[in-house]
């Protein structure tokens, strides 16, 4: 067979000459210019974007035959529960571990473009720094306050219905898909701008999760003050991309409406001097 490119050796599956082209937006580090490189990767059964990236790491040769550095990406669990491998696959943000090549091909894709998430600073290639996201969760006090100097005893009794409502909110893995797809969530190069910029759906949903927790509700007034400030829930533009790209199918738009309602009531109570 002369069709196989000489510069792109196929280590396995010679009887399976089918390859898929990957176009990858690369960047050598913060502040460095982005560039595109393309790779032909043999399609193996059950392949996903991560396994293809592993193949490229082992064979870092572009379609022009130029030897390059292995593409850097971030990943952890490889089963869509950690959110680390989130990137843009063909323009759409998602976890690369569950981006199965067979499914992409079935959807009529002939090329796979990989880009880093668009709203976070790139560390290198497909690896981004989501520190701002975690910082916003801290600002939201997204925790149950139980630390202290004495034993608080058993928590309040839970109704199964309340627990069930909160369960789906608790499945958020801070992947950031909802932020990347949000037309109101802005990329901030300067960390000084973080507290002026919209926090996005995931943080708002976490505020709802911990406000609805019987013990977590102790911090509800502070969380709602945070939600009423600049960058809070009122900066949502109702494009509702968040709920459509969420891999955990968290009802993010319901959380946004619920927090919008809670903040309105909170502010009206504050106006009339009623304690929340």
């Amino acid at each position: 067979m002369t069709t196989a490119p000489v510069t792109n050796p196929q280590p396995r599956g010679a009887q399976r000459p089918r390859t898929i082209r990957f176009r990858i937006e690369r960047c050598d580090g913060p502040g460095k210019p982005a560039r595109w490189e393309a790779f032909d990767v043999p399609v193996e059964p059950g392949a996903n974007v991560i396994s293809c990236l592993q193949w490229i790491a082992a064979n870092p040769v572009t379609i022009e035959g130029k030897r390059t550095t292995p593409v850097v990406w971030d990943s952890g669990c490889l089963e869509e529960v950690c959110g680390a491998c989130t990137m843009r696959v063909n323009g759409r943000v998602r976890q690369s571990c569950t981006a199965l090549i067979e499914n992409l091909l079935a959807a009529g894709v002939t090329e796979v473009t990989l880009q880093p998430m668009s709203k976070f600073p790139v560390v290198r290639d497909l690896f981004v720094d989501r520190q701002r996201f975690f910082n916003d969760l801290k600002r939201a006090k997204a925790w149950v306050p139980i630390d202290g100097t004495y034993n608080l005893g058993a928590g309040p009794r839970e109704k199964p219905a309340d627990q069930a409502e909160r369960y789906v909110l608790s499945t958020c893995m801070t992947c950031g898909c909802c932020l990347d797809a949000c037309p109101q969530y802005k990329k901030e190069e300067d960390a000084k701008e973080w507290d002026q910029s919209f926090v996005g759906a995931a943080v708002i949903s976490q505020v709802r999760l911990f406000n609805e927790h019987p013990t977590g509700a102790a911090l509800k007034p502070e969380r709602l003050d945070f939600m009423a400030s600049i960058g809070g829930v009122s900066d949502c533009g109702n494009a509702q991309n968040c709920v459509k790209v969420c891999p955990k199918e968290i009802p993010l738009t319901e959380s946004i409406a619920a927090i919008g309602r809670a903040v309105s009531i909170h502010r009206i109570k504050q106006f009339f001097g009623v304690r929340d």
Partner: protein
Amino acid sequence: MTSASAPPKGNFLDRNHYLLRRLHSLTGVVPIGVFLIVHLVTNSSVVWGLLAHGDKGHAGVETFQHEVNFIHSLPALLLIEVFGLWLPIAFHSVLGVYYAMTARPNNKDYPYQDNWRYTLQRISGYVGVLFIFYHVATLRWGWTFLVPGGTQWTAEHAASTLAMALRGHETDVTLAGLMVAAFYMAGVSLLVFHLANGLWTAAITWGVTVSAAAQRRWGHVCLLIGAGLMLAAWSAVIGFMTLDPAEARQVELRMLAPESAPGTDP
């Protein structure tokens, strides 16, 4: 003392961020949204007046003139205009443009219907501001140099002067008239969309519709409201566009004539 939150920092806009956002949402519904509904129902009377009373003596023109006369009989009309309309519209427009400038539309990668409405809401806002300014400046403030044919709209000849301003000529429709009429068609259509979609998002903003099912149901109601208003808006523009100004003026003159003088038919 409970959880004393730090006083908000920054400039006036930042310190009152939430209040301004909510006032922006509120003014869009009341008074601006309510006014738009009344305005479109009034102006489409040139068509529904005709349908209700038949063609005898141009019932459409008569009904419309009757509605305009009622509005102009309101006490302190200028005060109502300034505080009920111009200031709320200016507030909603200025803040709306400021907020819309924070948008980073991404419809190519996320071509969902909701996302298209998000982008269209902002585009319709921008165009709506231009359209309302042109509309009020030409017809209310008398900037006739921007009117094709230079007609001055008057409340006594509401239908005929409006038809002139849309047509550009008494017996003919000029190119400039056609362009203005097309701008009206686009302007009112976008504003009706802006209101219908704004009613849908306002319900989420204020937390009236929390569940996705409630948002969907309210969306259907907003669609119906929008469709009804669109019908009114289009019939108003087309109604005045196709009106014969000379005939309309005769109807208006007849209505202006003192009723206590029988036999003095003008």
